């Protein structure tokens, strides 16, 4: 048993190094001067500076981009949660001709390549004058987040016993009231997970933001990828911005990890 324990630990070590090293390196890079960033041999011990963070925060309109990202992610979360909850509740409580096929069709919409969608989406948005608006991106992101939300929430609603609802109906609650006051409180953890995933879909998305956004609605991933000059990428600033953009994600990993397995096995997290 003791040897097996040591062997397991030996196997785990490279996996942990492989996982953590890039994160560690970018974290230290964000606190390095350009000189120590480019130093050979690579510097493991250095005196940390905050210049990179200061430059990102004050030399570019970072807070404007942060606001864009936050507003778009919030809109996506709320929209996909409202539509997704209603749809999942409908699917969970009823069977009708073609309902199984319809459920599957919803999953299929997730398989459409983003690039295939973004070209016509761009042309349509151009025509109706919605390029570079929050609404244009939010609508797209809701459609990315919803298939997963629906499938996740169906699972949670299926666990709510129908008798509870019938009791509420007898007491004179209408269907909407039953959903709001009885079903949703019971399935609250599921809603929380769906909300966080929807937030991340929007927070992380790059392609649509790259093509559909402009000066008014640019989001943080696009800003980070664009932190370059004629002389090459500004790695120090990039690292600092990357660390700040990653913070909400890291917090959510810690909160979420219990639910992630359930969510993943239902299929398809990152769209």
């Amino acid at each position, binding site marked *: 048993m003791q040897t097996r324990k040591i062997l397991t630990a030996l196997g785990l070590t490279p996996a942990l190094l492989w996982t953590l090293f890039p994160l560690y390196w970018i974290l230290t890079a964000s606190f390095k001067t350009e000189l120590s960033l480019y130093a050979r041999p690579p510097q493991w011990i250095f005196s940390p500076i905050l210049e990179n963070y200061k430059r990102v925060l004050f030399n570019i309109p970072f807070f404007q981009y942060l606001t864009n990202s936050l507003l778009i992610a919030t809109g996506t979360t709320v929209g996909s949660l409202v539509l997704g909850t209603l749809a999942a509740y409908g699917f969970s409580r009823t069977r*009708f001709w073609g309902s199984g096929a319809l459920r599957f069709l919803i999953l299929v919409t997730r398989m459409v390549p983003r690039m295939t969608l973004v070209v016509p989406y761009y042309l349509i948005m151009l025509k109706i004058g919605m390029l570079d608006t929050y609404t244009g991106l939010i609508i797209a992101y809701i*459609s990315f987040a919803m298939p997963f939300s629906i499938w996740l929430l169906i699972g949670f609603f299926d666990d709510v016993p129908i008798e509870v609802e019938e009791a509420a109906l007898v007491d004179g609650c209408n269907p909407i009231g039953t959903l709001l006051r009885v079903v949703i409180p019971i399935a609250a953890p599921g809603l929380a997970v769906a909300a966080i995933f929807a937030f991340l879909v929007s*927070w992380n998305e790059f392609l649509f933001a790259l093509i559909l956004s402009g000066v008014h609605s640019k989001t943080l991933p696009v800003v980070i990828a664009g932190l370059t000059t004629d002389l090459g990428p500004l790695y120090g600033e990039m690292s600092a911005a990357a660390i700040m953009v990653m913070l909400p994600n890291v917090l959510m990993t810690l909160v979420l990890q219990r639910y992630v397995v359930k969510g993943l096995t239902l299929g398809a997290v990152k769209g």
Partner: protein
Amino acid sequence: MGSVQSRRWFLVPGVIFLLVIDMVPLVYSLGVSLYEWWLVRPRDVRFIGLGNYSALVLDPAFRRSVLVTCILTFGAVVVEFLAGLALALLFAQPFRFLRPMRAVIMMPLFVVPVVGATMWRLILHPELGVLGYYLSLLGFGNPQWLSDPTLAMIALILVDAWRTIPFMFLVIHAGLETLPAELYEAARVDGASWLQAFRYITVPLLAYIMLVAVLIRGMDIFREFDIIFVLTGGGPGTATETIQLLNYRVFGLGHMGQANAIGVITLILVALMCYLLIRAVLRTR
């Protein structure tokens, strides 16, 4: 009394939204793909039927991008599957110190993809990169990760693997947790080795869930854009130009008809891949 069945109407807004937002662009795209249309020449739009499609099939750049996409998809899925499986088996060991490590292993899954690719670009950088420095100390020279065609493909696979091995791991890990311990107990009593138990118990029982994981991952890497765009931009030359990157380039040129035709073809390829894989999955059941 509003019967339970009346609740089917709850799903109407969401389903209509989803179908409209996904189907309208697709139908529109199908229409545009039949026209010769450059964005810079808005007055000169001609219907050319399947002209864009036949031009693509004959275009070496497009054929190459299909090949590149297939190599990337195959390479990434194989690496990720093997690593994910190995990790899952490691985490099946009954040691308490493994539990908190699961959250750590999961982390890359939540890193903003563009940010992850940016970090790797710094690590793989030919002059500044920490990886190249230590490899050259070990006598491997200083590999030009992103400017050598083969190495660029390997780098893409490794970076994608970094981000998504946790996904493979978690799905297989969840599957392993559901396997009854008695089976392994019985196998041990009968004198089966660890390898035999793996071959005759684990593999058959987990085949379904493993194929689902491969299916999802295969679909995702086939349509990957973010990390390729940030890491290699399709280069050097067109060595890592996948269908998605080519589509982006054609779109950037303003060749709308052809860009949409590429999109439609990608969709057909993805659907075909899914169909074949799903059929394979169902056969194992």
